């Protein structure tokens, strides 16, 4: 370049260059420092807690209102909310947790308890209960057990829910079919046949790919989807389950999976492709918004005319074992699950409120919430609620595999026996992970 130029200006230029380079480097370092530092405590004793959950817009609005109440009562604790949808939530959580930086408090579900306990992420909240920062009393119908595994309280339930059959009320009425408590699978599929004959629509959206429904079926037969460390059924069991399912796709009793695929993220039920769908009862609220018919909750079909195999599942709050503010975290969880005002704000969005304080404070006024309440009262009164089995580590991966491989069966792309073998081999890898 300009080698023969004026020496003095050359030096000046270089000095400027160096200064510029150095300041760039410093700026870079500075940025890193700000990003990494910034502890969650401050001089005046205020602490900040990160709280993350998955869910839709209504949940986010309600939770933020609840947080405002909490911050008013505990002015020294600030809550930083983070939320996203289910799949993104767990991908992000996994990355954060592996880097030692998960949120202090987060929404959790039974499929993840052992997984993240094994990885040393979850706090045993019993320690905080013993310290008097959190009450584990007044939980309804033994739902507190949903947060327990291996003698530890790894999550505190915020709501209870159970698997249910959501039906298109108009379609069932038009076909003259009346679901009744204790009806059998045969009666259920006969009902679907009647609907198909009379209304020319499928009866169900694809029951045999839903892990939690197969769990109920197995429980009706003295088994369960998971034992403490493995699958609780055999390849033959699953082969038969999927063979029957595929037969019903072929006959049109179960909706065409190609059509179901294309209405996503809408459900096949609210899209009018089928007259019923198995799902968690607190999800039933979405059908009213999505679909044009009226929807209601119907009993789970049984094997013996009585036992539905149902149990109370739950969304819960868990805490990061490495949090810098265990006491404040416990106080926050306590407030979120016991405070009556929070119960009024949250309603049944995450299931029927788990504690008596919140359950009694909230009187459902809209149709779907009333329906959910009546449904769970009916189920509880029937005395069919069994005990939840904590899932082994890897359950979340297996649930996704069950849906995917079942989908291949439905599409006619895998033979049931081969598909069952595939699921077992993937399950083996998931348990080992």
């Amino acid at each position: 370049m300009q080698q023969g130029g004026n020496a003095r200006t050359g030096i000046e230029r270089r000095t400027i260059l160096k200064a510029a380079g150095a300041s760039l480097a410093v700026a870079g370092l500075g940025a890193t420092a700000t990003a990494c530092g910034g502890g969650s405590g401050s001089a005046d004793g205020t602490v900040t807690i990160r709280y993350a959950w998955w869910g839709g817009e209504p949940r986010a609005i309600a939770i933020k209102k609840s947080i405002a109440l909490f911050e008013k009562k505990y002015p020294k604790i600030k809550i930083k909310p983070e939320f996203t949808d289910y799949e993104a939530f767990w991908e992000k959580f996994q990355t954060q947790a592996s880097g030692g930086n998960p949120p202090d408090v987060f929404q959790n579900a039974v499929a993840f308890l052992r997984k993240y306990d094994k990885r040393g992420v979850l706090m045993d909240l019993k320690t905080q209960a013993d310290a008097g920062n959190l009450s584990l009393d007044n939980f309804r119908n033994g739902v507190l057990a949903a947060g327990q595994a291996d003698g530890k309280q790894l999550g505190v339930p915020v709501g209870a829910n159970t698997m249910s059959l959501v039906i298109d009320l108009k379609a069932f009425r038009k076909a003259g079919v009346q679901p009744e408590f204790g009806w059998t699978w045969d009666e259920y599929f006969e009902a679907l046949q009647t609907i198909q004959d009379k209304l020319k629509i499928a009866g169900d959206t694809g029951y045999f790919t839903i892990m939690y429904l197969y769990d109920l079926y197995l429980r009706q037969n003295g088994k369960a989807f998971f034992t403490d460390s493995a699958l609780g059924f055999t390849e033959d069991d699953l082969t038969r389950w999927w063979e029957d399912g595929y037969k019903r796709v072929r006959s049109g009793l179960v909706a065409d999976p190609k059509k179901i695929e294309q209405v996503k993220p809408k459900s096949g039920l609210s899209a009018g492709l089928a007259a019923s769908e198995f799902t968690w009862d607190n999800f039933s609220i979405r059908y009213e918004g999505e679909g044009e018919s009226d929807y209601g909750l119907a009993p789970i079909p049984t094997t013996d005319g009585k036992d539905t195999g149902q149990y109370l599942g739950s969304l819960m709050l868990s805490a990061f074992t490495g949090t810098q503010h265990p006491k404040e975290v416990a106080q926050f969880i306590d407030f979120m699950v016991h405070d009556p005002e929070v119960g009024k704000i949250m309603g049944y969005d995450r299931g029927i409120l788990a504690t008596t304080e919140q359950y009694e404070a909230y009187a459902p006024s809209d149709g779907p919430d009333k329906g959910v309440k009546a449904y769970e009262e009916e189920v509880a009164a029937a005395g069919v609620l069994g005990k939840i089995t904590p899932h082994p580590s890897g359950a979340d991966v297996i649930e996704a595999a069950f849906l995917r491989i079942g989908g291949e069966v439905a599409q006619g792309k895998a033979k049931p026996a081969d598909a069952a073998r595939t699921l077992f081999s993937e399950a083996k890898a998931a348990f080992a992970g």
Partner: protein
Amino acid sequence: MTLVKEAPAPPAGKRAAAPAAGRRGRRRENLAGYLFMSPWIAGFVLLTAGPMIASLYYAFTSYNLFTPPKWVGLDNFTTMFQDPRWQKSVEVTLKYVVVATPLKLLLALGVAMLLAQKRRGQGLYRAAFYLPSLIGASVSVGFVWRALFSDDAIVDRSQKVFGLDVGGWIGNPDYVLYALVALSIWQFGAPMVIFLAGLKQVPRELYEAAEVDGAGPLRRFWNITLPMISPVLFFNVLLESIHAFQVFGSAYVVSDTRCGPADATLVYTCYLYQKGFKEAQMGFASAMAWTLVIAVALVTAVLFWSQKKWVHYEEAAK
């Protein structure tokens, strides 16, 4: 760096007079240069080279992100080659590359030849055909594509007119990959522009001479255009196939994040993503990544080797 080349050489006498000062000065300039490059170098080392070396190591370990990686030798690779889903992902990806790349280049070349002719508003046409390349990779176009090829949507309805009723491509494992292929072909703008540049380089005299000799349009294309643009064609084939091997976004979005139905759009990178970020089998995912790197390198090597046979460079003419 062309600037350096163009700068006149310093007078010899001056260089001899102060060799030490010059060397020191150059070293200082180098230092300043490196300082300026430092953000880029830091980024490269921390965000590209470092992770790549780490992933090479992880490829030989079992690593779930939480417990320290455990050395397992070649286990990941042997498991991978026997894994039916991995085989499926290879099959899907190869099908995609082999179908999408030639079709895209054919269309790009065809349109480029039309646009190479002088006509009114040609700038407008070029911009219009290039446009999909700019927006095609975006997530929103993925959603649009999903809507276009769904049951009872525009593609399905148009097909029905001709009696071809498949009930929408998106839900059908036999068709959905071709919706992705269509999305790729639609973005033919980038190779088209390169072809256009290549076509402009072909000397007009060659065509005139050929015409005088009585060569028809096909003959002129085959014996003049194709050999003359073969370096450009080679470049496009290389770039587009490497690109196609790495397809991810369109498969992920069009299939509603599951790369289905029935794994019909399980392209290689999508399976890698599922293994790494959903199932936290980072060792397996790293092994997959390096296998892809090697496979793409091999394909590139074969292409370079093959160019002796069909790519015509002009050195001889000079």
